[in-house]
Protein backbone atom coordinates (compact mmCIF):
# COMPACT_ATOMS: atom_id res chain seq x y z
CA UNK A 1 0.00 0.00 0.00
CA UNK A 2 1.45 3.34 -1.03
CA UNK A 3 0.55 4.94 2.26
CA UNK A 4 3.53 7.25 2.13
CA UNK A 5 2.76 8.78 -1.28
CA UNK A 6 3.95 12.39 -0.80
CA UNK A 7 1.31 13.71 -3.21
CA UNK A 8 -1.52 12.77 -0.83
CA UNK A 9 -3.02 15.38 1.49
CA UNK A 10 -2.65 14.46 5.16
CA UNK A 11 -5.13 14.87 7.98
CA UNK A 12 -3.88 16.44 11.24
CA UNK A 13 -5.27 13.30 12.92
CA UNK A 14 -2.98 10.88 11.04
CA UNK A 15 -0.90 10.07 14.15
CA UNK A 16 -4.09 9.53 16.17
CA UNK A 17 -5.37 7.10 13.55
CA UNK A 18 -2.09 5.19 13.45
CA UNK A 19 -2.08 4.92 17.24
CA UNK A 20 -5.61 3.47 17.05
CA UNK A 21 -4.35 0.83 14.61
CA UNK A 22 -6.17 2.24 11.58
CA UNK A 23 -5.65 0.94 8.10
CA UNK A 24 -5.05 4.11 6.09
CA UNK A 25 -5.66 4.35 2.38
CA UNK A 26 -5.87 6.91 -0.40
CA UNK A 27 -9.29 8.47 -0.91
CA UNK A 28 -10.00 11.46 -3.20
CA UNK A 29 -6.36 12.54 -2.99
CA UNK A 30 -6.15 12.18 0.79
CA UNK A 31 -4.63 9.53 3.05
CA UNK A 32 -7.62 8.65 5.26
CA UNK A 33 -8.59 5.91 7.73
CA UNK A 34 -10.46 3.12 5.94
CA UNK A 35 -11.06 1.00 9.03
CA UNK A 36 -9.86 0.51 12.60
CA UNK A 37 -11.37 -2.55 14.30
CA UNK A 38 -13.21 -3.80 11.22
CA UNK A 39 -15.98 -2.36 9.07
CA UNK A 40 -18.73 -4.60 10.51
CA UNK A 41 -17.99 -3.65 14.12
CA UNK A 42 -17.71 0.04 13.23
CA UNK A 43 -20.97 -0.09 11.29
CA UNK A 44 -22.74 -1.72 14.26
CA UNK A 45 -21.32 0.89 16.65
CA UNK A 46 -22.92 3.70 14.62
CA UNK A 47 -26.27 1.89 14.28
CA UNK A 48 -26.45 0.94 17.95
CA UNK A 49 -24.19 3.30 19.92
CA UNK A 50 -21.99 6.09 18.63
CA UNK A 51 -19.00 6.48 16.34
CA UNK A 52 -16.68 9.30 15.33
CA UNK A 53 -15.36 9.86 11.79
CA UNK A 54 -12.46 11.99 10.53
CA UNK A 55 -13.77 13.62 7.34
CA UNK A 56 -11.11 16.31 7.03
CA UNK A 57 -10.88 15.60 3.30
CA UNK A 58 -14.25 17.23 2.54
CA UNK A 59 -14.36 20.89 1.46
CA UNK A 60 -15.19 23.71 3.84
CA UNK A 61 -16.24 26.93 2.15
CA UNK A 62 -17.57 30.18 3.65
CA UNK A 63 -19.84 32.24 1.44
CA UNK A 64 -20.42 35.55 3.20
CA UNK A 65 -21.68 39.02 2.35
CA UNK A 66 -24.72 40.98 1.22
CA UNK A 67 -24.89 39.10 -2.08
CA UNK A 68 -24.05 35.64 -0.71
CA UNK A 69 -27.66 34.51 -1.16
CA UNK A 70 -27.78 35.66 -4.80
CA UNK A 71 -24.50 33.95 -5.64
CA UNK A 72 -25.65 30.69 -4.05
CA UNK A 73 -29.06 30.88 -5.77
CA UNK A 74 -27.29 31.03 -9.13
CA UNK A 75 -24.89 28.21 -8.19
CA UNK A 76 -27.02 25.49 -6.58
CA UNK A 77 -30.33 23.80 -7.46
CA UNK A 78 -32.45 24.26 -4.34
CA UNK A 79 -34.09 27.48 -3.15
CA UNK A 80 -31.50 28.85 -0.72
CA UNK A 81 -33.84 31.71 0.25
CA UNK A 82 -35.93 29.14 2.11
CA UNK A 83 -33.11 28.30 4.54
CA UNK A 84 -33.67 30.06 7.86
CA UNK A 85 -30.71 31.20 9.94
CA UNK A 86 -29.48 28.15 11.87
CA UNK A 87 -30.77 25.65 9.29
CA UNK A 88 -29.30 23.63 6.43
CA UNK A 89 -30.43 22.33 3.03
CA UNK A 90 -29.37 19.58 0.60
CA UNK A 91 -28.26 20.90 -2.78
CA UNK A 92 -26.70 20.03 -6.09
CA UNK A 93 -24.38 21.96 -8.37
CA UNK A 94 -24.99 21.28 -12.07
CA UNK A 95 -23.05 21.87 -15.25
CA UNK A 96 -24.51 23.62 -18.31
CA UNK A 97 -25.94 20.31 -19.55
CA UNK A 98 -27.74 19.59 -16.27
CA UNK A 99 -25.18 16.97 -15.18
CA UNK A 100 -24.34 16.75 -11.48
CA UNK A 101 -21.02 18.43 -10.64
CA UNK A 102 -21.47 17.80 -6.92
CA UNK A 103 -24.02 17.36 -4.18
CA UNK A 104 -23.53 19.30 -0.98
CA UNK A 105 -25.18 20.78 2.08
CA UNK A 106 -25.62 24.55 2.39
CA UNK A 107 -25.68 25.75 6.01
CA UNK A 108 -26.96 29.21 6.95
CA UNK A 109 -25.12 30.49 10.00
CA UNK A 110 -26.20 34.15 9.89
CA UNK A 111 -28.21 36.66 7.92
CA UNK A 112 -25.51 36.91 5.21
CA UNK A 113 -23.35 33.98 6.25
CA UNK A 114 -23.47 30.59 4.53
CA UNK A 115 -21.18 27.57 4.72
CA UNK A 116 -20.99 24.82 2.09
CA UNK A 117 -19.38 21.39 2.28
CA UNK A 118 -18.55 19.88 -1.13
CA UNK A 119 -17.21 16.36 -1.62
CA UNK A 120 -13.42 16.15 -1.37
CA UNK A 121 -12.85 15.36 -5.04
CA UNK A 122 -15.12 18.23 -6.13
CA UNK A 123 -14.05 20.99 -3.76
CA UNK A 124 -11.80 22.74 -6.28
CA UNK A 125 -14.51 22.59 -8.96
CA UNK A 126 -17.25 23.91 -6.66
CA UNK A 127 -14.92 26.68 -5.46
CA UNK A 128 -14.26 27.59 -9.10
CA UNK A 129 -17.97 27.71 -9.92
CA UNK A 130 -18.65 29.91 -6.89
CA UNK A 131 -15.79 32.25 -7.81
CA UNK A 132 -17.19 32.46 -11.31
CA UNK A 133 -20.72 33.26 -10.09
CA UNK A 134 -19.34 35.68 -7.50
CA UNK A 135 -17.38 37.75 -10.01
CA UNK A 136 -18.04 41.43 -9.18
CA UNK A 137 -20.52 40.62 -6.40
CA UNK A 138 -20.24 41.75 -2.81
CA UNK A 139 -19.39 38.33 -1.45
CA UNK A 140 -16.38 36.79 0.29
CA UNK A 141 -15.41 33.21 -0.50
CA UNK A 142 -13.07 31.51 1.94
CA UNK A 143 -11.86 27.95 1.46
CA UNK A 144 -10.80 26.69 4.90
CA UNK A 145 -7.95 24.34 4.07
CA UNK A 146 -6.78 24.42 7.69
CA UNK A 147 -10.10 23.26 9.14
CA UNK A 148 -11.01 19.68 9.94
CA UNK A 149 -14.34 17.91 9.84
CA UNK A 150 -15.46 15.36 12.42
CA UNK A 151 -18.78 13.51 12.36
CA UNK A 152 -20.24 12.00 15.51
CA UNK A 153 -23.06 9.66 14.52
CA UNK A 154 -25.33 7.16 16.23
CA UNK A 155 -28.19 6.96 18.74
CA UNK A 156 -25.86 8.21 21.50
CA UNK A 157 -24.42 11.12 19.45
CA UNK A 158 -26.67 13.78 21.01
CA UNK A 159 -25.59 12.73 24.50
CA UNK A 160 -21.87 12.70 23.60
CA UNK A 161 -21.78 15.98 21.67
CA UNK A 162 -24.21 17.72 24.03
CA UNK A 163 -21.84 17.05 26.94
CA UNK A 164 -18.89 18.63 25.11
CA UNK A 165 -20.67 21.40 23.24
CA UNK A 166 -23.84 22.56 25.01
CA UNK A 167 -24.84 24.47 21.87
CA UNK A 168 -25.51 21.11 20.22
CA UNK A 169 -28.03 19.80 22.73
CA UNK A 170 -30.91 21.90 21.38
CA UNK A 171 -30.26 21.54 17.65
CA UNK A 172 -32.94 19.81 15.61
CA UNK A 173 -32.25 17.75 12.48
CA UNK A 174 -30.53 19.91 9.83
CA UNK A 175 -29.95 22.67 12.35
CA UNK A 176 -26.59 24.41 12.64
CA UNK A 177 -24.90 26.83 15.01
CA UNK A 178 -21.58 28.27 15.95
CA UNK A 179 -20.21 26.72 19.13
CA UNK A 180 -17.05 27.24 21.17
CA UNK A 181 -14.56 24.55 22.08
CA UNK A 182 -11.78 25.71 24.42
CA UNK A 183 -12.69 29.27 23.45
CA UNK A 184 -12.18 28.51 19.77
CA UNK A 185 -15.24 28.96 17.55
CA UNK A 186 -16.35 26.03 15.44
CA UNK A 187 -19.33 25.18 13.28
CA UNK A 188 -21.67 22.50 14.57
CA UNK A 189 -24.54 20.90 12.63
CA UNK A 190 -27.13 18.17 13.22
CA UNK A 191 -26.48 16.49 9.89
CA UNK A 192 -24.80 13.37 8.60
CA UNK A 193 -24.48 10.63 6.01
CA UNK A 194 -25.31 7.54 8.06
CA UNK A 195 -29.06 7.54 8.64
CA UNK A 196 -28.52 7.94 12.38
CA UNK A 197 -28.88 10.97 14.58
CA UNK A 198 -25.61 12.80 14.62
CA UNK A 199 -23.49 15.87 14.38
CA UNK A 200 -20.99 17.26 11.97
CA UNK A 201 -18.30 19.48 13.53
CA UNK A 202 -15.93 21.76 11.68
CA UNK A 203 -13.08 22.66 14.06
CA UNK A 204 -10.01 24.66 13.07
CA UNK A 205 -6.90 22.48 12.73
CA UNK A 206 -5.41 23.80 15.98
CA UNK A 207 -7.99 22.14 18.23
CA UNK A 208 -8.97 19.08 16.25
CA UNK A 209 -6.59 16.67 18.00
CA UNK A 210 -7.87 17.69 21.44
CA UNK A 211 -11.49 17.54 20.29
CA UNK A 212 -11.01 14.11 18.65
CA UNK A 213 -9.40 12.75 21.83
CA UNK A 214 -12.06 14.20 24.06
CA UNK A 215 -14.85 12.72 21.93
CA UNK A 216 -13.15 9.28 21.99
CA UNK A 217 -12.66 9.57 25.76
CA UNK A 218 -16.39 10.25 26.29
CA UNK A 219 -16.94 6.54 26.82
CA UNK A 220 -18.05 3.97 24.28
CA UNK A 221 -17.29 6.15 21.25
CA UNK A 222 -15.83 4.03 18.45
CA UNK A 223 -13.57 5.46 15.70
CA UNK A 224 -15.14 4.70 12.32
CA UNK A 225 -13.42 4.65 8.94
CA UNK A 226 -14.53 5.32 5.39
CA UNK A 227 -15.35 1.63 4.86
CA UNK A 228 -18.25 1.77 7.31
CA UNK A 229 -19.19 5.26 6.12
CA UNK A 230 -19.86 3.62 2.75
CA UNK A 231 -21.93 0.69 4.09
CA UNK A 232 -23.90 3.06 6.34
CA UNK A 233 -24.75 5.52 3.56
CA UNK A 234 -25.60 2.74 1.13
CA UNK A 235 -28.08 1.16 3.59
CA UNK A 236 -29.86 4.54 3.50
CA UNK A 237 -29.62 4.76 -0.29
CA UNK A 238 -27.70 8.03 -0.10
CA UNK A 239 -25.92 8.54 -3.43
CA UNK A 240 -22.16 9.04 -3.51
CA UNK A 241 -20.86 11.52 -6.06
CA UNK A 242 -18.36 9.91 -8.42
CA UNK A 243 -20.22 6.61 -8.15
CA UNK A 244 -24.01 6.95 -8.11
CA UNK A 245 -24.18 10.49 -9.39
CA UNK A 246 -21.85 12.35 -11.75
CA UNK A 247 -21.92 14.82 -14.62
CA UNK A 248 -23.27 11.89 -16.71
CA UNK A 249 -26.51 11.95 -14.70
CA UNK A 250 -29.09 14.61 -13.86
CA UNK A 251 -31.01 15.12 -10.60
CA UNK A 252 -34.09 13.88 -12.50
CA UNK A 253 -32.54 10.44 -12.99
CA UNK A 254 -31.01 10.40 -9.50
CA UNK A 255 -34.41 10.91 -7.88
CA UNK A 256 -33.27 14.27 -6.50
CA UNK A 257 -35.87 16.51 -8.16
CA UNK A 258 -37.02 17.42 -4.66
CA UNK A 259 -33.70 19.31 -4.31
CA UNK A 260 -34.30 21.33 -7.48
CA UNK A 261 -36.34 24.55 -7.43
CA UNK A 262 -37.21 25.48 -11.01
CA UNK A 263 -39.20 28.53 -10.00
CA UNK A 264 -36.65 30.31 -7.80
CA UNK A 265 -34.97 32.04 -10.75
CA UNK A 266 -32.02 31.17 -12.96
CA UNK A 267 -29.30 28.76 -11.80
CA UNK A 268 -26.57 26.72 -13.47
CA UNK A 269 -28.00 23.88 -15.49
CA UNK A 270 -31.64 25.02 -15.11
CA UNK A 271 -32.45 25.41 -18.81
CA UNK A 272 -30.80 22.15 -19.78
CA UNK A 273 -32.59 20.36 -16.98
CA UNK A 274 -35.98 21.74 -18.05
CA UNK A 275 -35.27 20.61 -21.61
CA UNK A 276 -34.27 17.16 -20.45
CA UNK A 277 -37.38 16.91 -18.32
CA UNK A 278 -39.49 17.63 -21.37
CA UNK A 279 -37.59 15.13 -23.52
CA UNK A 280 -38.26 12.46 -20.92
CA UNK A 281 -36.02 11.07 -18.22
CA UNK A 282 -34.15 8.03 -19.59
CA UNK A 283 -33.39 6.14 -16.39
CA UNK A 284 -34.13 6.15 -12.71
CA UNK A 285 -31.92 5.34 -9.71
CA UNK A 286 -33.34 2.45 -7.67
CA UNK A 287 -32.24 0.29 -4.80
CA UNK A 288 -31.72 -3.46 -5.33
CA UNK A 289 -31.88 -6.00 -2.52
CA UNK A 290 -30.41 -9.38 -3.34
CA UNK A 291 -32.62 -12.43 -2.87
CA UNK A 292 -29.70 -14.84 -2.58
CA UNK A 293 -26.31 -14.55 -0.93
CA UNK A 294 -24.37 -13.02 -3.81
CA UNK A 295 -23.04 -9.51 -3.24
CA UNK A 296 -23.31 -6.91 -6.00
CA UNK A 297 -20.54 -4.37 -6.57
CA UNK A 298 -20.40 -1.31 -8.82
CA UNK A 299 -20.86 -1.71 -12.61
CA UNK A 300 -22.69 -5.04 -12.61
CA UNK A 301 -25.29 -5.38 -15.41
CA UNK A 302 -28.95 -5.69 -14.40
CA UNK A 303 -31.48 -7.73 -16.41
CA UNK A 304 -35.28 -7.99 -16.42
CA UNK A 305 -37.22 -10.39 -18.59
CA UNK A 306 -34.10 -11.14 -20.59
CA UNK A 307 -33.38 -7.47 -21.38
CA UNK A 308 -30.44 -5.58 -20.07
CA UNK A 309 -32.12 -2.73 -18.15
CA UNK A 310 -29.23 -1.04 -16.42
CA UNK A 311 -26.14 -1.25 -14.26
CA UNK A 312 -25.29 -1.00 -10.58
CA UNK A 313 -23.37 2.09 -9.46
CA UNK A 314 -22.62 1.02 -5.87
CA UNK A 315 -22.99 -2.31 -4.15
CA UNK A 316 -22.01 -3.92 -0.90
CA UNK A 317 -22.98 -6.33 1.84
CA UNK A 318 -25.51 -4.71 4.17
CA UNK A 319 -24.28 -5.42 7.70
CA UNK A 320 -27.75 -4.71 9.10
CA UNK A 321 -29.76 -6.88 6.67
CA UNK A 322 -27.00 -9.48 6.12
CA UNK A 323 -27.61 -9.46 2.34
CA UNK A 324 -26.18 -7.69 -0.68
CA UNK A 325 -27.63 -4.31 -1.63
CA UNK A 326 -26.96 -1.97 -4.53
CA UNK A 327 -27.99 1.22 -6.25
CA UNK A 328 -28.63 0.93 -9.98
CA UNK A 329 -29.95 3.06 -12.81
CA UNK A 330 -32.80 1.14 -14.44
CA UNK A 331 -34.36 2.10 -17.75
CA UNK A 332 -36.75 3.13 -19.05
CA UNK A 333 -37.50 5.30 -16.04
CA UNK A 334 -41.17 4.35 -15.78
CA UNK A 335 -40.75 0.60 -16.18
CA UNK A 336 -40.07 -0.40 -12.59
CA UNK A 337 -41.84 -0.20 -9.27
CA UNK A 338 -40.79 -1.30 -5.81
CA UNK A 339 -41.17 -5.06 -5.42
CA UNK A 340 -40.29 -5.91 -9.05
CA UNK A 341 -37.86 -8.77 -9.61
CA UNK A 342 -34.68 -8.27 -11.60
CA UNK A 343 -31.42 -10.18 -11.99
CA UNK A 344 -27.93 -8.88 -11.32
CA UNK A 345 -25.06 -10.36 -13.30
CA UNK A 346 -22.63 -11.12 -10.48
CA UNK A 347 -19.42 -11.97 -12.33
CA UNK A 348 -21.09 -14.12 -14.94
CA UNK A 349 -23.86 -15.61 -12.86
CA UNK A 350 -27.37 -14.14 -12.69
CA UNK A 351 -28.54 -13.53 -9.15
CA UNK A 352 -32.13 -12.57 -8.29
CA UNK A 353 -32.86 -9.21 -6.68
CA UNK A 354 -35.84 -7.11 -5.66
CA UNK A 355 -36.31 -3.48 -6.71
CA UNK A 356 -36.49 -1.33 -3.56
CA UNK A 357 -37.18 2.32 -2.85
CA UNK A 358 -34.42 3.20 -0.36
CA UNK A 359 -33.74 3.38 2.49
CA UNK A 360 -32.99 -0.33 2.76
CA UNK A 361 -33.08 -0.15 6.57
CA UNK A 362 -35.68 1.40 8.82
CA UNK A 363 -33.55 4.16 10.34
CA UNK A 364 -33.98 7.93 10.54
CA UNK A 365 -31.50 10.72 11.25
CA UNK A 366 -34.20 12.99 12.68
Amino acid at each position, binding site marked *: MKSTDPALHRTPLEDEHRRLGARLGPFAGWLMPIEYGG*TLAEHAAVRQGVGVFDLTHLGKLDVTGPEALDVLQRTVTNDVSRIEVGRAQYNMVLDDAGGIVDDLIVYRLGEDRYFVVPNAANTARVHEVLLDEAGGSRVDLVLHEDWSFLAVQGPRAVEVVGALLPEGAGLGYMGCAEARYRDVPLILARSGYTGERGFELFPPGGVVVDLWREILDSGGVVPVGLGARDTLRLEMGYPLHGQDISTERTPLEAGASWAVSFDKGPFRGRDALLRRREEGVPARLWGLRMLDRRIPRAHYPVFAGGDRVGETTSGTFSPTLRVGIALAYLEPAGRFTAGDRVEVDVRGRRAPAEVVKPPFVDRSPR
Partner: protein
Amino acid sequence: MEFPEELRYTREHEWALDESGGRVRIGITDYAQDALGDVVYVDVPETGTEVRAGEPFGEVESTKSVSDVYSPVNGTVVERNPLLDERPELVNEEPYGDGWMIVVEVSDPDQLDDLMGAAEYRTFVEEVGEG
Protein backbone atom coordinates in the same frame (compact mmCIF):
# COMPACT_ATOMS: atom_id res chain seq x y z
CA MET B 1 0.77 -12.58 11.94
CA GLU B 2 1.01 -16.36 11.95
CA PHE B 3 2.86 -18.61 9.50
CA PRO B 4 2.43 -22.21 10.72
CA GLU B 5 5.48 -24.35 9.95
CA GLU B 6 3.53 -27.41 8.80
CA LEU B 7 1.78 -25.57 5.94
CA ARG B 8 2.79 -24.84 2.36
CA TYR B 9 1.92 -21.46 0.81
CA THR B 10 1.08 -19.90 -2.58
CA ARG B 11 1.93 -16.48 -3.96
CA GLU B 12 -1.84 -15.81 -4.00
CA HIS B 13 -1.92 -16.29 -0.21
CA GLU B 14 -3.54 -19.70 0.08
CA TRP B 15 -2.23 -22.38 2.41
CA ALA B 16 -2.17 -26.15 1.85
CA LEU B 17 -1.84 -28.86 4.48
CA ASP B 18 -0.72 -32.37 3.49
CA GLU B 19 -3.00 -34.63 5.54
CA SER B 20 -1.41 -37.72 3.94
CA GLY B 21 -3.32 -40.35 2.01
CA GLY B 22 -3.49 -37.92 -0.90
CA ARG B 23 -5.68 -35.42 1.03
CA VAL B 24 -4.75 -31.73 0.99
CA ARG B 25 -6.66 -29.20 3.12
CA ILE B 26 -6.81 -25.66 1.69
CA GLY B 27 -7.62 -22.19 3.02
CA ILE B 28 -6.43 -18.60 2.86
CA THR B 29 -3.63 -17.22 5.01
CA ASP B 30 -3.70 -14.91 8.01
CA TYR B 31 -2.16 -12.23 5.79
CA ALA B 32 -4.92 -12.68 3.19
CA GLN B 33 -7.79 -12.47 5.68
CA ASP B 34 -6.24 -9.38 7.27
CA ALA B 35 -5.88 -7.67 3.89
CA LEU B 36 -9.46 -8.54 2.90
CA GLY B 37 -11.11 -7.20 6.03
CA ASP B 38 -14.36 -8.60 7.39
CA VAL B 39 -15.31 -11.65 5.32
CA VAL B 40 -19.08 -11.75 4.72
CA TYR B 41 -19.51 -14.48 2.09
CA VAL B 42 -17.46 -17.45 0.94
CA ASP B 43 -18.25 -19.34 -2.25
CA VAL B 44 -16.64 -22.80 -2.24
CA PRO B 45 -17.29 -25.55 -4.79
CA GLU B 46 -19.35 -28.68 -4.24
CA THR B 47 -17.62 -31.97 -3.61
CA GLY B 48 -16.67 -33.72 -6.82
CA THR B 49 -15.50 -30.50 -8.48
CA GLU B 50 -12.17 -30.71 -10.29
CA VAL B 51 -9.68 -28.00 -9.33
CA ARG B 52 -6.43 -27.07 -11.05
CA ALA B 53 -3.30 -25.57 -9.56
CA GLY B 54 -3.15 -21.83 -10.14
CA GLU B 55 -6.79 -21.55 -11.16
CA PRO B 56 -9.63 -20.06 -9.06
CA PHE B 57 -11.88 -22.50 -7.23
CA GLY B 58 -13.92 -20.04 -5.18
CA GLU B 59 -14.48 -16.48 -4.04
CA VAL B 60 -14.16 -14.63 -0.78
CA GLU B 61 -16.22 -11.47 -0.34
CA SER B 62 -15.45 -8.88 2.30
CA THR B 63 -17.33 -5.68 3.05
CA LYS B 64 -15.08 -3.87 0.61
CA SER B 65 -14.20 -6.28 -2.19
CA VAL B 66 -14.33 -9.72 -3.76
CA SER B 67 -11.29 -11.93 -4.34
CA ASP B 68 -10.75 -15.20 -6.16
CA VAL B 69 -9.27 -18.09 -4.23
CA TYR B 70 -6.75 -20.15 -6.21
CA SER B 71 -6.11 -23.84 -5.86
CA PRO B 72 -2.55 -24.73 -4.87
CA VAL B 73 -2.92 -28.22 -6.41
CA ASN B 74 -4.61 -30.35 -9.08
CA GLY B 75 -7.26 -32.70 -7.79
CA THR B 76 -10.89 -33.30 -6.83
CA VAL B 77 -12.81 -31.61 -4.00
CA VAL B 78 -13.76 -34.30 -1.48
CA GLU B 79 -14.87 -32.02 1.38
CA ARG B 80 -16.09 -28.43 1.63
CA ASN B 81 -16.34 -26.51 4.89
CA PRO B 82 -20.07 -26.43 5.69
CA LEU B 83 -19.56 -23.95 8.56
CA LEU B 84 -18.66 -21.12 6.18
CA ASP B 85 -22.18 -20.91 4.75
CA GLU B 86 -23.48 -19.52 8.01
CA ARG B 87 -20.26 -18.23 9.59
CA PRO B 88 -18.00 -16.70 6.92
CA GLU B 89 -16.28 -14.73 9.69
CA LEU B 90 -14.44 -17.94 10.62
CA VAL B 91 -12.05 -17.09 7.77
CA ASN B 92 -11.02 -13.99 9.77
CA GLU B 93 -11.11 -15.61 13.17
CA GLU B 94 -9.37 -18.91 12.42
CA PRO B 95 -7.85 -18.80 8.94
CA TYR B 96 -5.77 -21.93 9.64
CA GLY B 97 -8.46 -23.68 11.72
CA ASP B 98 -12.24 -23.66 11.34
CA GLY B 99 -11.88 -21.16 8.51
CA TRP B 100 -10.53 -23.82 6.10
CA MET B 101 -12.29 -24.03 2.73
CA ILE B 102 -11.90 -27.37 0.95
CA VAL B 103 -10.12 -30.72 1.08
CA VAL B 104 -8.77 -31.87 -2.27
CA GLU B 105 -7.79 -35.42 -3.19
CA VAL B 106 -4.62 -35.26 -5.25
CA SER B 107 -3.15 -37.93 -7.46
CA ASP B 108 0.37 -36.66 -6.94
CA PRO B 109 1.23 -35.33 -3.44
CA ASP B 110 4.63 -34.17 -4.74
CA GLN B 111 2.80 -31.11 -6.14
CA LEU B 112 3.11 -29.53 -2.70
CA ASP B 113 6.89 -29.37 -3.13
CA ASP B 114 6.41 -26.55 -5.65
CA LEU B 115 4.83 -24.30 -2.98
CA MET B 116 6.61 -22.06 -0.49
CA GLY B 117 7.53 -23.11 3.02
CA ALA B 118 6.66 -20.97 6.04
CA ALA B 119 9.94 -19.02 6.14
CA GLU B 120 9.87 -18.35 2.42
CA TYR B 121 6.24 -17.20 2.55
CA ARG B 122 6.96 -14.92 5.48
CA THR B 123 9.71 -13.22 3.47
CA PHE B 124 7.38 -12.99 0.47
CA VAL B 125 4.68 -11.29 2.55
CA GLU B 126 7.17 -8.84 4.03
CA GLU B 127 8.30 -7.88 0.53
CA VAL B 128 4.68 -7.45 -0.62
CA GLY B 129 4.06 -5.25 2.42
CA GLU B 130 6.99 -2.99 1.57
CA GLY B 131 6.16 -2.79 -2.15
